[in-house]
């Protein structure tokens, strides 16, 4: 085997490259096709989509679905709520995470070890869903926006990643020098540490914001009032109603199904677009964010 390879070292290169590229194209097609289909279907006449005529390009081009969404109050409420939850939630996340991560990154903080153990332990053992639910209930947060903002204020993993970044990527000498010059600790954090940590901050904002944008389970258990529903809950109602209708066909639900059929593709686009638009801007920082996370803390 090895002798054969020595005999013709480069000849397998060509075929190999072709196979690799073909496979890569196949992978892209599998990932991309559903997304392309949704985009096309959202601009198509619903009847043609139902009839199976649309498979790549829109048929019977129309903006009707998007116009219907414009008039759908539920979707707008959900959208507005989600924007609020994502913005306020991410703001709280970032403040809490940075403020906790920075002191923990200082090798001179007494009690640092203890605090780290306290924090790391929660990654291995947790009270679980029910005790957390009871706590949130006892705090009177059920059916308020607080239930979606506060209980997840710090993601332990993100906190550790950020601490590791502060610790490894910002020269300790710099902090010492600033301290000698009489820079207060708050100023040090605000004017020196944070500007030097932009890549990791960008990644964290993205992770937290996407988490808020896409999460629906917390809202499912904590939120009853429809006026507080985030977008994902509204989506679930619209998109999955035809599914549940297949199981228990009730009269009167038919109109809803028709409406759902006509707008569901457009709803998917409208709800996923903000996140998909945001991510290429932060993409170049991903590697850094993911790499740091894997470094032993």
């Amino acid at each position, binding site marked *: 085997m090895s002798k054969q390879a*020595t005999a013709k070292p480069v000849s397998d290169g060509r075929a*190999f490259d072709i196979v690799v590229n073909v496979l890569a194209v196949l*992978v892209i097609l599998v990932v991309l096709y559903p997304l392309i289909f949704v985009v096309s279907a959202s601009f198509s006449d619903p009847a043609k989509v139902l009839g199976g005529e649309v498979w790549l390009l829109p048929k019977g081009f129309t903006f009707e679905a998007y116009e219907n969404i414009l008039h759908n109050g539920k979707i707008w409420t959900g959208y507005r709520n989600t924007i609020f939850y994502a913005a306020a939630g991410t703001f709280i996340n970032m403040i*809490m995470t940075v403020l906790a991560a920075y002191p923990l990154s200082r090798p001179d903080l007494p009690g640092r070890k203890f605090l780290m153990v306290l924090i790391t332990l*929660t990654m291995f053992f947790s009270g679980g869903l*029910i*005790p957390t639910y009871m706590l949130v209930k006892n705090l009177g947060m059920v059916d308020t926006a607080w239930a979606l903002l506060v209980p997840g204020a*710090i993601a332990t993993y993100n906190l550790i990643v950020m601490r590791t970044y502060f610790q490894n990527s910002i020269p300790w000498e710099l902090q010492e020098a600033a301290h000698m010059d009489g820079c207060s600790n708050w100023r040090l954090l605000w004017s020196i540490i944070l500007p030097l940590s932009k890549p990791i901050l960008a990644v964290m904002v993205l992770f937290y914001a996407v988490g808020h944008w896409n999460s629906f389970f917390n809202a499912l*258990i904590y939120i009853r009032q429809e006026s507080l529903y985030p977008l*994902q809950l509204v989506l679930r109602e619209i998109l999955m109603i035809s599914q549940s209708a297949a199981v228990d066909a009730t009269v009167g639900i038919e109109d809803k199904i028709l409406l759902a059929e006509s707008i569901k593709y457009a709803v998917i686009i409208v709800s996923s677009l903000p996140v998909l638009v945001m991510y290429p801007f932060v993409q170049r920082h991903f590697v850094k964010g993911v790499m740091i996370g894997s470094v032993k803390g």
Partner: protein
Amino acid sequence: MRNALAADRSYPTGTRKERKLWKAAHLPFYLMILPGFLYFIVFKYVPMFGLLISFQRYDPFVGILDSPWVGLDNFRRLFSEQDFPLLLKNTFTFALLDICLFFPAPIVLALLLNEVRLKPFRNAVQTILYAPHFISWVVIVSLTMTLFNSQDGIVNQWLSSAGLGTIDLFTKPEWLKPMWLLQNIWQGVGWGSILYLATIASIDPALYEAAKSDGAGRFRQIWHITLPGIRYVIVVLFILRLGNFMEIGFEHIFLLQNPLNVEASDVFDTFVYRTGILQRDYSYSAVVGLFKSLVGLVLVLGANKLARKFGEEGVY
């Protein structure tokens, strides 16, 4: 230098003035960490003590202090639960599928992408493959429903026009787990490959040059250079995954679950949700959660020990 400075400020020494200085130097840090500290106590540790209701017949109206203690009754009930073997079996099946079939997927993808020589094409592929990571499960699940709808889903229309019949993804329990796995791969394979690709990029190119001049083909280069180059990362991620063995993505499974496939989709998480949140049987559902947490904890510790045994540095 670092240690000297650190030591210098870490210990309050004799005089009153020095102690005061020490306090002034550290107080801001404790103030910064205070909100986070309170957060962890209230939202992470208080619920742990809330698990005490596992040993009670908890009554929300009298509270945790006055509810009657019942010892291990709730545990007995769990182990004699009719659905317990099913829950255990499903949870483990999901977890094993995830570890055996989902875990290797990003590695294979990274190896493949690394062999794509055309840089712009490769970057484009990467950008596209990361995108599904940002799409919510609600959208992914309902998109699948739409594509595979038994009457008008596009995929089923193709299949039936090709004379292959239809795939009833959501009504046949046997399809549930394959569908779950494929959706996981679709969503996570690109994202999961980032770390491997970054590690491959840091492999010394001289190694490949040397292998080439020794006459090694592309497969042999992958086998002898690329794979050993990412071995450490594979091991670390594998241990981390083992440690989270029981975490199989509640939102995803919950969304896939319906009355027709419940025998294949019911896991501890969905059971806890049903008995705890919907039926308000707090004590009993807390026991189920506790059981799951304990199994998870044992697996974390076991995985770490295993890693040390194989000569790798433990993760924790």
